């Protein structure tokens, strides 16, 4: 029987997020579901590389610790859990979750695993597909592809919940869709009910970054203060079958939920607000109004959905060379001039050695590393030289850090605190795939 409302908590806004606020929601917010959204754009591609080294890995590296803390609380309070912690290995993640449940004495925990987002073979087999960002054919990156994953919609999450499993484990699912799945399942909505999908998508969008709507990423001391930020709570939403949505937080938790925090999150990572495209619908945000409906409660009204597009967006992660980096700090009198000289010396020495880079940045943290240079900024007491270069050649990348380190004995006076690192670059581009090519399915993983 369909309920008249459902209450859903946001347990994570990114792969490495905190879980104490999630436990607080499970224990004190009266929620029916807790959703852990754990995938940034590059996460699956990176986890795919991990899985190549270790076939049983490739899911969220914090899953084991997180689940060990969260599952017992979910079991005690009868809260169902939906999560994209599966990353590049949802089945492995589900097996590990069942193993953790058994060890914690939770009997008969079942995971429903949503599969089908991995379209790496499908995309690689269509060399003429155009990349949305550069317009180049997929062919140009095929040999370097780490993973291609479609952003699945709420219908797949709903199908997984229909199995009755306590835990739904997914790979790539669009962030709002993870939240809309439970709404479809509990409120008796058809997937084509666009009259409610707009409000549902707005709710999912506001929840998907967890603490970013309860006062995280918001504080500007003296201007925009956040109470007890160290005890920041995560949000929940109460969604009515008629499409009403209220965002809130646990009263005792730190942070704040008001029109200001909700507006910042509403427009977060949005391009055209009249056409926010998700797998479920095209959301028009411009009709939305936000209204304080109580202490730390905000009602969302007026979100409008247009029918979904005939395609899934697919993110393709591919290897794109190396970034080599070195850093060294300078402080006290003339620190900026000494750091600038150091940067010039490194640039010159790399050139003398015949090392070339597709891009070489020489910048001073404290002056121009974030927003470029400007004339009217005061000179800081201390600065940090940062030299970073991009190259397809790993050795050339490594040499940047070594060259910065030699400034100790071969550079200006007073350099201190060196750091060097090399990172393999995972670039991301997108394609659109017709929906009918992407086959989703649900697989069960039982008690182990």
């Amino acid at each position, binding site marked *: 029987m369909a309920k008249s409302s459902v209450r859903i908590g946001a347990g994570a806004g990114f792969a490495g997020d905190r879980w104490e606020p999630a436990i607080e929601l499970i224990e004190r917010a009266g929620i029916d579901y807790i959703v852990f959204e754990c995938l940034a*754009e590059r996460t699956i591609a990176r986890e795919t590389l991990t899985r190549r080294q270790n076939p049983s890995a490739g899911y969220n590296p914090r899953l084991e610790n997180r689940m060990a803390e969260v599952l017992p609380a979910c079991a005690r309070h009868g809260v169902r859990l939906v999560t994209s912690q599966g990353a590049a290995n949802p089945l492995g993640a589900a097996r590990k979750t069942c193993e953790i449940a058994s060890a914690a004495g939770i009997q008969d925990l079942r995971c429903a695993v949503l599969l089908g987002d991995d379209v790496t073979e499908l995309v690689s087999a269509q060399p003429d597909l155009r990349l949305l*960002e*550069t317009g180049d054919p997929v062919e140009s990156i095929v040999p370097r592809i780490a993973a291609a994953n479609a952003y699945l919609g709420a219908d797949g999450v709903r199908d997984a919940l229909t199995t009755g499993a306590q835990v739904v484990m997914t790979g790539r699912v669009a962030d709002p869709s993870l939240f809309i799945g439970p709404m479809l399942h509990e409120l008796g909505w058809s997937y084509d009910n666009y009259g409610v999908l707009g409000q549902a998508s707005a709710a999912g969008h506001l929840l998907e970054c967890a603490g970013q709507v309860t006062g995280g*990423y*918001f504080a*500007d001391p003296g*201007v*925009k203060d956040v109470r007890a930020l160290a005890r920041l709570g995560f949000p929940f939403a109460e969604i009515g079958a008629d499409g009403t949505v209220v965002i809130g937080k646990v009263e005792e938790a730190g942070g704040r939920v008001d*029109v*200001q925090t909700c*507006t*910042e*999150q*509403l*427009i*977060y*990572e*949005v*391009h*055209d*607000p*009249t056409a926010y495209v998700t797998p479920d619908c095209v959301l028009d*945000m*411009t*009709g*939305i*109004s*936000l209204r304080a409906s109580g202490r730390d409660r905000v009602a969302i009204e*007026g979100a409008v959905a247009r029918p979904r597009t005939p395609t899934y967006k697919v993110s393709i992660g591919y290897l*794109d060379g190396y*970034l080599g980096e070195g850093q060294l700090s300078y402080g006290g009198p003339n620190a900026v001039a000494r750091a600038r000289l150091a940067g010039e010396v490194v640039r010159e020495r790399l050139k003398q050695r015949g090392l070339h880079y597709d*891009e070489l*940045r020489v*910048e001073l*943290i404290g002056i121009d*590393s*974030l*927003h*470029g*240079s*400007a004339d009217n900024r005061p000179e800081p007491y201390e600065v940090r030289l*940062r030299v*970073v*270069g*991009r190259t397809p050649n790993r050795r050339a990348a490594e040499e940047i850090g070594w060259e910065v380190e030699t400034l100790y004995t071969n550079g200006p006076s007073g350099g201190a605190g060196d750091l060097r690192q090399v990172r393999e*670059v*995972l*670039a*991301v*581009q*997108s394609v659109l795939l017709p929906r009918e090519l992407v086959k989703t399915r649900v697989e069960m993983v039982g008690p182990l």
Partner: protein
Amino acid sequence: MKLTVRDLAHCRAGDKGHAVNISVIAYDSAGYDRLARELTEERVMAAFTALADGPVTRYDLPKVKAFNFVIEHLRGGGVTATAALDIHGKSLSSLMLTIALPGNEPS
């Protein structure tokens, strides 16, 4: 003293791949109206010329007294991966706050 965006609004930046989106949210209706007149796409582009090729597009959300600025083609590192310290452009909301508006601060 010049009036800046920070006197009238708060901002948050988000990653849109090769672009960045920055919301500008007015504290009140008077601030929204003034920003609507004075915080033009051209003025924002001028503040970001060192960092992006543009274009800049402004979307208006009057019901929440906000604007969404989308700044395309952030420089450095080609389309999809950058050598910048701030790989997502998330700190750029703070640069938006520094933009001076043409009128003077009312005394």
